[in-house]
Every structure is written in structure tokens, then in C-alpha cells.
């Protein structure tokens, strides 16, 4: 899979899809327009899922669903631009993530080790999906190897498109600490890529 270069920018496919029309789309969604809400959902859900897959790979879909339920409830009261919208969305997701982590600590589960791979149900196009998503999945897998806080900072900066100050507010840390965490995470990522040659194995081409 090739990553396209559009408008002189690389990797903006999941960012600012709504763009200048965001205010109108948001107003329509707040007024009950389902199609407008779908635009917002298609814009943000991929980034949200990737963020959650790094931090909670086993329950990313569940947390994303809970997040959207909360967002739908609060949508009529939301006021802000697209950056604020993303900040609100990812803040909501992060809170659901923390709730999920607390719940799992109180209710530990046994892993299903005795179920073989052949018994796991698979969709007919699983293999095709794997081929299509290998680059993104590899990147998510690499981010998952980072320390949690560094990975979270990078995901919020890269996927949610939030600046340092907003991320600092979300995480309850100073902007300097967030900046340092991001840089250390990038360095760690670079070391992982250099050591394992993950970029070439992932099939990412420019």
C-alpha cells in the first residue's frame, strides 16, 4: 500500500477531512442531521480507533463505541472549532479508556489460550484486509512498543492533530513535559526502526 502525497503534505488523510465546512457540518449534526453526523464520524473514527489500538488493543472497538455514545449525548452542547472537536473526542475516549483500565483491574479475566487459531472465526476477506492494512498495522505495532506515555503523546499529536498545549491539558502535564515525552518517543521509534528494519518489512513505500 502506498501512502499518497497530497497538497504537498504527507499523511494528512485522516486529518481535517471536514475542513472549512466543519462549522456547518457540526451545526447540522447538532440539529439532528444524521448524514452530517456521519461525516464527523467517518472523519474521526479511524484516528480514534488507531489511538485506542495502541493503548488498549484488546478493547479498542468497545471503547470507541462507548466514546461515540458519550459524544452523541453531548453533541448538542458542544461549542468549538474542529481542533476543539477532536480534543473533546479524544478526551472522552481517554476517559473511557481509563474507566476500562480500572474495570479490568477489578475484574481480571483469563486469557483464552486453549483456543486454537483455526477455531477463531475469521471473515472471508481477513487476508485481504491484512494485506491492505499492513503498513498502518505495523506502525501501530511499533507505537505499541513505546512507553505508554510517549506513545500516547505521539498518537495525540499525530492522529488527533492536537498541539502540545492541548495534549498537556488532556494529560495533566506541563507542555514541556509533553514535548520531551514526544521527542523521546520519536527517538525510541527511530531506534526501533533502525534496529529491526521495520519500515522496509512493513512494506511502506513513499
Amino acid at each position, binding site marked *: 500500500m502506498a501512502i499518497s502525497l497530497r497538497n504537498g503534505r504527507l499523511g494528512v488523510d485522516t486529518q481535517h477531512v471536514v475542513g472549512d465546512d466543519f462549522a456547518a457540518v457540526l451545526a447540522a449534526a*447538532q440539529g439532528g442531521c444524521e448524514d452530517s453526523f456521519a461525516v464527523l464520524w467517518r472523519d474521526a473514527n479511524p484516528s480514534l480507533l488507531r489511538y485506542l489500538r495502541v493503548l488498549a488493543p484488546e478493547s479498542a472497538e468497545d471503547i470507541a463505541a462507548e466514546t*461515540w455514545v458519550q459524544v452523541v449525548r453531548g453533541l448538542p452542547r458542544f461549542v468549538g472549532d474542529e481542533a476543539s472537536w477532536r480534543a473533546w473526542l479524544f478526551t472522552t475516549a481517554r476517559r473511557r479508556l481509563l474507566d476500562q483500565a480500572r474495570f479490568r483491574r477489578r475484574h481480571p479475566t483469563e486469557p483464552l489460550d486453549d483456543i486454537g487459531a483455526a477455531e477463531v472465526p475469521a471473515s472471508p476477506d481477513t487476508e485481504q484486509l491484512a494485506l491492505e492494512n499492513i503498513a498502518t498495522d505495523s506502525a501501530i505495532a511499533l507505537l505499541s512498543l513505546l512507553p505508554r506515555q510517549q506513545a500516547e503523546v505521539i498518537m495525540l499529536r499525530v492522529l488527533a492533530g492536537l498541539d502540545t498545549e492541548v495534549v498537556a491539558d488532556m494529560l495533566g502535564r506541563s507542555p514541556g513535559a509533553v514535548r520531551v515525552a514526544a521527542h523521546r518517543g520519536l527517538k525510541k521509534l527511530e531506534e526501533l526502526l533502525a534496529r529491526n528494519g521495520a519500515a522496509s518489512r512493513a512494506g511502506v513505500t513513499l
Partner: protein
Amino acid sequence: MPDSPLPPIWGPLCNERDLEALLSGEEYGRSRGSGHPQDLHPVAVALAALRAAPMRGELSGEATARAVFRASASAAAPVPGPRAGDTERGTVTARTFVPSPGDRGQPRGARPSHRRGTRTWAVRWPAVAAAGAVAIVAIAVAVTGVLPGSAAQSHPVSAGTSAAATAKPSASQRVEGGALVEPSIRPTSAASPTSSAPRAAQSSGTLCREYYSFFAHPEPQASQAAEAALGEKLDKLAGGPPKVFTYCFPYLDYLSWGKVQGTTSAAAQATRLGDPVATATPDPSPNDANYGAGSPGAGKPGAGDSVTGKFGAGGSGSQTGSGQG
């Protein structure tokens, strides 16, 4: 622009601006001169993969999201206004809990505060009324110094608590009639029986009622000895003859005597007390000097003293207990 120095982990080939551009997805080029340094190229590739176009599985939940949105939108739909027959309370409730069309889309904090106050007052009204009643009772106790009799009433009267009670059962029955019930209030002074000694209080009540029954229903000379014995006991209990009436007042149920006798008139009460002069006398007031401790006219009952100091108002009347009959 970043305002903090980078940790020394990247070396001289990379500056903070490059890293910020990498994270924010700004202008990107393959050559070192136009964009990120070559050292960051693998990282840029990985981050670009993170920003790749949505995968198929990432958009599969759109139908579910739409359904959630529809459900939420239908739940938030405006409801019709109150019907013509609705009461005012029902109207307030509906406007309180169901957002009107004008309220949709407003933040909760922007709602008028009077709605919350109306609802709170309606819910808490019984509690406020109960608290007011308790406060009134507390004030009454503080002013009068006595407790309501409902907290400790209906003690059975012991027939053998005193020699006089044993000697004068008929007199006691006549005075109290069928109301062999403890008074509704109890003394709280130091000389008065305390609640920790219900038996003593019961005896005191019996003594007081029997003692003052001699004044209400004069007995022959033979009963004067019992009356004197009762008076002595009450003197000891009350702390002296001047304090006997104050001590016994709570037990006498004075204000209800007329009702016990089947009439509420002052004349009937005065007749029952055996004081014809007091016929037109109003009910005694606790502030009257004749009822207070150490009042000049208060003598030892049953020993030839005037009853005026105990029951008469304004010092009227001069009959003694022994002189009646």
C-alpha cells in the same frame, strides 16, 4: 514554536523544529534541504502510515453509530406542551424535566436557575415543615423548662406508694375520676423528680394528686391526719412548703380538671376546689406571685394554712382546707 530545548538525544543533525514538523505533519520532503533530515525519514514513514486513509474495518461501525445518533435525536425531540387540564404542578414538572424546544442545544449550565429552585422547594417542603415543628417544640421546652408529656406519659398509678394513697383510695378516685393518667408535663427543677427515676415520679404524681384532692373534696376530720402526712412528704420532696405547688403543678393537669369533671367553666373548677370566692377568678398564671416559691401567702397545706396561696388568685379567699365541709 517550541520554547524548551530538546533533550540531547538526536544529535546535531536534527533540531526541534524538525521534530515538531514531523509530529504536526507540516511540509515534508525527501531531501534534507527542503524538509526533515534524512535521519528522521524512517520515523516520518511510520507516522505517515499512522495517518493513512481509513481502513475498511475502521468504517464498519457507521451503521451502529448512526443508530445511536438516531436514538439520541429522537429522545431529545421536543415534547408537546401541557394539556389544558394539567395542573400547575404538572406543568412545572414537565418544564423541569423535559426540555422545551427552546432549551434544546443549550448547555445545562445556561438553564434558568429558578427551575432548579422550584423543584427543590417542592421536594423539600415536608422536610422543612417537620424541621419547623421540631424547632417550635425545642423553643417551647427551652422557655418553659419542661418536656412535653408525650415523651413520658401514661405511667400507671401505684396504689401503694404512700400511706395516704392506701388510706384514701376513694378520694383519689374522685379527684382524678377516670383519668388515672400522668400529667402531660413534668417538673424539671432540682427538687423535682427526674426522668431517670420514673417510679419516684409516679409516686410524686400520686402524692400530689391525692394531696390536692383534699382541697377539692373536703373530707371529714378523720382524713386530716392523712392530709398532713401527705403534706410533709411533699414538703420534703419539693424542698419546702412554698415549693409544693410548683413541684406538684405538672402532675395536677390543672388546666384539664374542668374537662375531667365534665365542664370547662371556671365556676365549676372553683367549686371543685372548694373556694367560692374564686368563682370568677381566671386560671392561674405561673407568673403569679402566689404560685411561686416562697410566696408570702403560701403555707403548709393541710395544717390550717389558707389555700389561697395555692389556688386562689390575688389572695382572695380565706378558707382553710380543714374548714371546708
